[in-house]
């Protein structure tokens, strides 16, 4: 049958294109515009070429913040993914406790980010905070306001508290979708608990784990609100992540050109890392090309 070619279809795409243009493309282009110019008061702009990019990429400040971000994301993934899987495995599969567990799990996800920050800011204070006072009372030298290590521990524990449920819920969804017959067959095959996890549960969770890793990576790499509220990036610069640094640069120092260049670099890093994760995880366990693949 001959296909009818008709350009009218573009009209259906048009509203989406306009929306995306207004919400994403045009603002992004403004940033691109800033990134190649230097600005002075009274709205004067001067062409600056790629110099801002060069400056950002060679600045120690940027390197330090980037390293902090990478370390933070690595730790978050290393803790939240296995912990999330463990909690999901331990959750009941049927009965009245299922909705109870699900609601409890969903609670932290429902709290606005700056509220989470405020909760922990108070919670971890050594004078009036339940956690801080308890830890200090137990004889630990804990003070997140002054000690960089304590600040990091606080920020990470807070993120684990806030976001592990997301991994749990995703993994749980993957787990409950496994038909009973798989477990029954495994029993009959004499599989150990570990083998059931390794060969049935983990492969079936593969898809949702990919989503969980991607979401947790992107979110943790872009983290801003919670550490900003709790530590303000301190003590010193010890918890100044890229986003916090970026805001300091743009709003604090009003250096629009450099901040714009930095945002673009930041954006490209996230894009690149997400692509790498996606490629690795979708290729794990996939068949290598074999002879006669075209049958």
């Amino acid at each position: 049958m001959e296909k009818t070619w008709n350009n009218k279809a573009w009209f259906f795409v048009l509203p989406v294109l306009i929306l995306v243009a207004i919400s994403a493309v045009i603002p992004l282009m403004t940033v691109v515009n800033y990134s190649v110019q230097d600005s002075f008061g009274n709205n004067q702009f001067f062409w600056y070429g790629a110099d801002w990019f060069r400056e950002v990429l060679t600045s120690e400040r940027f390197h330090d913040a980037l390293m902090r971000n990478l370390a933070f994301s690595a730790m978050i993934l290393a803790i939240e993914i296995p912990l999330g899987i463990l909690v999901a495995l331990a959750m009941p599969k049927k009965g009245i406790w299922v909705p109870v567990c699900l609601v409890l799990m969903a609670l932290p996800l429902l709290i606005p980010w700056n509220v989470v920050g405020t909760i922990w800011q108070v919670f971890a204070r050594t004078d009036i905070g339940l956690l801080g006072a308890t830890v200090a009372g137990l004889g630990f030298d804990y003070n997140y306001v002054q000690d960089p290590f304590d600040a990091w521990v606080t920020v990470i524990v807070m993120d684990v508290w806030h976001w592990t449920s997301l991994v749990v819920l995703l993994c749980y969804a993957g787990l409950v979708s496994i038909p009973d017959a798989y477990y029954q067959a495994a029993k009959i095959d004499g599989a150990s608990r570990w083998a059931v996890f390794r060969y049935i549960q983990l492969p079936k969770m593969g898809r949702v784990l990919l989503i969980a890793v991607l979401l947790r990576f992107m979110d943790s790499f872009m983290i801003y609100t919670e550490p900003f509220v709790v530590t303000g990036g301190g003590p010193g610069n010890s918890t100044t992540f890229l986003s916090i640094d970026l805001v300091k640069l743009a709003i604090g120092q009003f250096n629009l050109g450099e901040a714009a260049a930095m945002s673009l670099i930041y954006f490209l890093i996230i894009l690149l890392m997400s692509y790498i994760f996606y490629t690795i995880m979708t290729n794990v366990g996939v068949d290598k090309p074999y002879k006669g693949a075209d049958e």
Partner: protein
Amino acid sequence: MARIRLDHIRHAYSAELAKAGTYALREIDHVFEDGGAYALLGPSGCGKTTLLNIISGLLTPSEGHLYFDRTDVTMLTPEQRNIAQVFQFPVIYDTMTVAENLAFPLKNRKVPAGEVKRRVADMLARIGLEEKANRKARGLTADEKQKISLGRGLVRSDVNAILFDEPLTVIDPHMKWQLRSELKQLHREFAMTMVYVTHDQTEALTFADKVVVMYDGEVVQIGTPEELFERPQHTFVGYFIGSPGMNVLPCTVDGSDAIVSGERIALPNGAGFKRTGKTELGIRPEFVTLVERGGPNAMPVTIDKVEDIGSERIVRARLGDHPLSAIIEEGASVPSQAAVTFAPHALNLYADSRLVDRSGGTA
């Protein structure tokens, strides 16, 4: 390999249900002989899968005992019972290759590596997947996956029994025939006790030496396909087996005659009992002959429609108020003033849905 004995087994899915007398499986007392091929046949919800899971050990019966040969296995796990089960949906380990899938149950049982290799190679040849041995199992078709799950059972040569839970449900029709005959072939080679659950009569009748027909949590008849066809012990069996099923006509009994909507039908061996309860007369459509009205013993019927199914024709008629089916040859004429006669040897009399043994006494 083992003889499986079900000793007064009953099952209810909870204690409350048992108290209320709602058993998914009412009392079953039966023996599956060693090396036999059995089919559990019945409609959805009749308890056949429950029975299968009790045999495999995925369920523990509420009452009764299960024996493999002389061992009481009622409380043993599926692994300890050493049985294999093939499920409705093919269960394969996605991330393993075909060969690894087959080796899995052996490795779990710490079989020496050389032995594993030999048996896996042998099994790959038997199920015809040698060429795909090193491929990941996830990309295969449904019938190949089902062969793998079957192979995982057969690869342990010492299994006591192989249980099938509607294994061909997701297989394409043209592959069903092939897989079924391969199954039959494997049964002959291995001579293992096989129990096959299905709701498809063709599958049951072609696979099994003996068919166990279940209805509403009970075994209503166990027999060869021939017995099920000729002497259904229960009106349900008559109705469920055969296409179309047996005609079941409410009747009253008078001496040695049955009376169906005023028509008197002579029963060759007499009624065999004297009582007034629910009595029915069963006759298979194959044994109903369509004749002109007025002949000897001819009972006038009204014909509703004639269905042509290619090889033969099915006449849907009414005898008085009761629907009646008859099978006639392709090309045979349908009389305009139709009547029917019944082949006397094929008449079955049922009291309260159960066959009356007319060689003497109630069955």
